[in-house]
């Protein structure tokens, strides 16, 4: 802005003062710094959550042993799934406790959690203890013979069984 003495003398004292250049630059610097920090923070906040989670595949194929007794859980090695057979067919129940993620073990009256004493019935409903939800039933697909595909990522309503 060029200083123009006659023009400025004509201005009314009620007109607001133009922002001096120094102040304008200072304010611009403060606000651009704030905006930069804000956007940097938003960018950083994106980082801890990867677009693809490094989880192993949740689908797996399993061959049941021939003489699997009704009601006896078959747990494939390295998986947290109990596969059971009864008169209605084959079904899979997750053995991950719905309380705090420990692995439940089959007992005579259902499943027991070792960590905080939650107990579940044979179909996974909560009998006692702090677990807030029943054990999850997982999707089972029959692929012929004694072989099944279990999908740990797909929860199905309790009572869903595959007739062999």
């Amino acid at each position, binding site marked *: 802005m060029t200083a123009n003495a006659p023009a400025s003398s004509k201005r009314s004292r009620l007109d607001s003062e133009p922002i001096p250049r120094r102040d304008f630059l200072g304010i611009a610097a403060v606000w651009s710094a704030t905006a930069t920090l804000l956007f940097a923070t938003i960018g950083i906040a994106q980082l801890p*959550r990867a677009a693809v989670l490094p*989880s192993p595949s949740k689908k797996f194929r399993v061959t049941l042993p021939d003489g699997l007794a009704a009601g006896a859980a078959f747990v494939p090695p390295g998986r947290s799934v109990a596969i059971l057979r009864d008169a209605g067919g084959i079904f899979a129940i997750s053995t991950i406790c719905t309380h*705090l993620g420990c692995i439940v073990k089959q007992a005579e009256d259902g499943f027991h959690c070792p960590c905080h004493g939650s107990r579940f019935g044979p179909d996974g409903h909560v009998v006692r203890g702090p677990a807030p*939800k029943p054990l999850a039933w997982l999707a089972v697909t029959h692929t012929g013979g004694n072989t099944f595909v279990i999908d740990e990522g797909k929860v199905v309503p309790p009572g869903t069984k595959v007739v062999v």
Partner: protein
Amino acid sequence: MSVAPAPPGPGPAPALRRFADNLRRSPGRFRDAVMRSGAPRSDRSRSNFVFGSLFLHLHSVRVHRWSLRWSTTMGLGVITAAAFFLTLVTGILLMFYYKPYPDVAYLSMKDIHFVVPTGRFIRNIHRWAANLMVVGVFLHMARVFFTSAYRPPREFNWIIGMGLLAVTLGLSFTGYLLPWDQLAYWAITIGANIAQSPREVTDALHLTRTFDPGGLTKLLLLGSETVGEEALIRFYLLHVMILPLVLTLLLGVHMWRVRKDGGIVRPADADQRLEPLGHATYPVFTEAPQKTYHLAAVVPGRTPAVGNGPENTVPAMPHLFYAEAGAFMLTILICLVLALFIDAPLKELANPAVPENPAKAPWYFLGLQELVSFSAFMGGIGIPTIVLLGLGLIPFLERETDGTGEWFGGPGGVRTVLRSAAFGLGAVLAVEAFVIRFGWIRQWWPQVPQLVITAINPGTVLTLLYGLFSVALVKKYDSTRAGAVALFTCFLCGYVVLTIIGVYFRGPNWEFFWSPSQWPVH
């Protein structure tokens, strides 16, 4: 400087002589340069030395004799800071061999235990110093509370102290995963699922699809859905970098504020109650005091008595430094002796398919684990949040002045504390005995909705009892301090009892056993 003509006769040239002279004097000059104000020989130069040093000037130059009494602080803050220093040094040493990758981590722990010279000893010191730090933080907090040291102008430092408590527990928790053994893996699985436990409420309200803070927290903590390599790297980074930096920063502010807020809290009549200084005590202002360091000793809000000098203060160097060195040596002694005789545990390699039974968190979290065994959300997040909020609000809700700086000061004195302790112990024991004997709502009515158990469980009942007792004491004594004492004492008692039950009386399937010898054998 004018150059003198060369002296007649043989002998070294003057420049060379000056060089030799400078060389001879270099050590002394170097020392003076480091000390800024010369060697600290007199009271005055010592004061300058403390005042001029970046590290030492966290202390005030002169310290009130009340602060140096053993019973004022019992050295708890210094012991905690010293324990942190020990974990820092031993932790850096352990980083030479530790490799943060699943399975490899466990092998490197075995290396540290069995191959690295002194490795096991260093790890033991690290662990014991960490334990001592946790104990120290709690005891220090209790000291500050019971001497009413959170009152103005120290409210902000009380909040900083709570931050230090949280970061200390965070450091312990993140360190617990690093060995990648069974103990570590399952403790962290449980911990991460506690972070996810708001789902207990959002699930019951059918909100989880749209609003899932629990799942997000767990995902950010683990970087995955289960405890794996991402989780290990994250915990490692938090443990060795982020949390130590935060803790160091907070510790710096904490110590600085101790000094700026007028030193350690003391009763208003502390000067009258102190015995006269023994004549054998190191001289106090005998060496021609100068006005400048009268000024340096001025504490905001207090005017030094004219003509007397700031009486009943002694120079921080040496009196305070001797006391601190004593507390530091005590810390080292405790850690060394424990580390010599008791090894840090290392169980078998982590196995994601088979949990430990019982799977126990580190001992200072077992009180929480006991609460979590009633309701994950309330025990792990709800009640701790209530307690932290309550602690943080104490200095703003309790604005009385009676008994500041006195142990168990306030209405009723030590009797209020004892009465609160009796109630706190009685309530927690009664609630626990009831639960262990009769079970809880779900055993009586299996169809009860989860929200009812989340809201009404032994943990929330106990919290409510403590709250009601505190309100009763506020009314009885017509004093907010009495209520604060009741609440703090009750929660301390509850925490200790729950921790003891978790450590000693819980066995496989988290069932109650009088002794581990009764545990069923599998």
